[in-house]
C-alpha cells in the first residue's frame, strides 16, 4: 500500500474530523479524495503540520489529526519534544512513513534506513506511540479517535505517488473556512 491507499481507507474515518495536512502530495491527494472545510491544507512551509496541529489542539476541544510525513517530521524533529511536553488529549499525530520524500521524486529519507521515528517519538517523551502497517492504519486511527489520549501513530507504507491536480484554493480561503469549522465545533 502507498500513501494514497492509506488515505483512501482513512477517508470515512477522518472526513468529519479537523485535519491539518502536510505540504505537497499528501494535501493534494486528500483534497482530491475528499475536500472538506475541516481540512487545513498546507501549501508551503515543510515540516510544520505537527506544530500547527498541536497549537490547534491545545486551545480548543475538538479532536485534531495532523497528517505528516517522515521527511517532514525529520525536518522539524524537535516537534516531538514539544508534543511530548505539552500533551493534548485531543491530538493525534499520524506520520505516514513511506521512507521517502514523495513530493520531490521519492528520494529516500533516513526514516527508511536505520532511523525509527517511533523510537524517536518514544525517546522524546511521547507516551502513546504506535507503529503500525499501512493495512492496519485505519483501524489504529479509529481506535485513537475513540479514546481521550494523545496518540502518535507511525504508519509504515510503501513509497509511491498517484497523479493528482494541485490545489487551486487560495490560502486565506482554506484558513477562513477551516476557522469557521473549528468555531462551529466549539460553539
Amino acid at each position, binding site marked *: 500500500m502507498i500513501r494514497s491507499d492509506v488515505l483512501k481507507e482513512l477517508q470515512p474515518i477522518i472526513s468529519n474530523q479537523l485535519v491539518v495536512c502536510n505540504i505537497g502530495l499528501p494535501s493534494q491527494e486528500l483534497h482530491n479524495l475528499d475536500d472538506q472545510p475541516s481540512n487545513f491544507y498546507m501549501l508551503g512551509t515543510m515540516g*510544520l503540520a505537527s*506544530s500547527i496541529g498541536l*497549537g490547534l489542539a491545545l486551545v480548543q476541544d475538538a479532536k485534531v489529526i495532523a497528517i505528516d510525513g517522515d521527511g517532514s517530521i525529520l525536518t522539524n524533529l524537535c516537534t516531538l519534544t514539544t508534543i511530548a511536553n505539552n500533551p493534548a488529549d485531543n491530538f493525534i499525530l499520524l506520520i505516514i512513513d513511506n521512507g521517502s520524500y514523495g513530493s520531490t521524486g521519492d528520494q529516500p529519507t533516513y526514516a527508511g534506513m536505520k532511523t525509527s521515528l517511533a523510537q524517536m517519538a518514544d525517546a522524546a517523551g511521547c507516551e502513546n506511540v504506535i507503529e503500525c502497517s499501512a493495512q492496519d492504519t485505519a483501524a489504529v486511527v479509529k481506535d485513537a479517535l475513540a479514546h481521550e489520549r494523545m496518540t502518535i501513530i507511525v504508519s509504515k507504507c510503501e513509497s509511491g505517488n498517484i497523479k493528482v491536480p494541485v490545489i487551486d484554493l487560495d490560502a*486565506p480561503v482554506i484558513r477562513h473556512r477551516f476557522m469557521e469549522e473549528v468555531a462551529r465545533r466549539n460553539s
Partner: protein
Amino acid sequence: MSINEKIVADFVRNKIEFVTTVPCKQLAGVIEEIGRSDAIYHIPSNKEDEGMGLCAGSYMGGKRSAIIMQNTAIGVTINTLVTLIQYYNIPLPMLISYRGEIGELIACQVEMAVHTKALLAQMNIPTYHFHEQSDVNELDGILKFSFMAKKPVAILTDASFWQGA
C-alpha cells in the same frame, strides 16, 4: 509597573492567550513574566519556525498568539513568515530582541543585526524599533494593528530599551 509587566499586560489586554518563546538573555525577564501570567498559555519552542506553526494553530483555534524571539530568528523563519503567516493572512506579533546594536558585547550578533531591518523591509513586514523605555507605550496600538490587518509585525527591542528593565 516594570517594562516586563507592561508588555504582558498589553498582551493580555489584546486577548493574546498563547505565547511561544525562544530564549535570549535580553528577553529573560519578559519570558519569566509570560510564565507567571494565568491568562497566557506559555509554550517554549525549540526553534522559531516551529513556534510560528504553533502560533498559527492557536490562532486558527480561536486564541490569539504571539512569539518572543531574538532577531537572529529572522534568518531561520523567512520561509515560514512568507509561506505560512503572510500567505494565509495570519496575524502574528513578534516581540524581538534586537541584538547586535549599540551596547552589544558579542561581535557575531552584529552580523545579523546589520541585515535585520533590511530583511523585514524586503518581506514588507511592518517594523517598529523600541529604543527608549517610553516606546513601550506604542505596544498596545501595534498589537491592535497586527490583529486588524491580519499581518505579522516586528517589534525590535534593543539593549537601550531593556536597560534597567
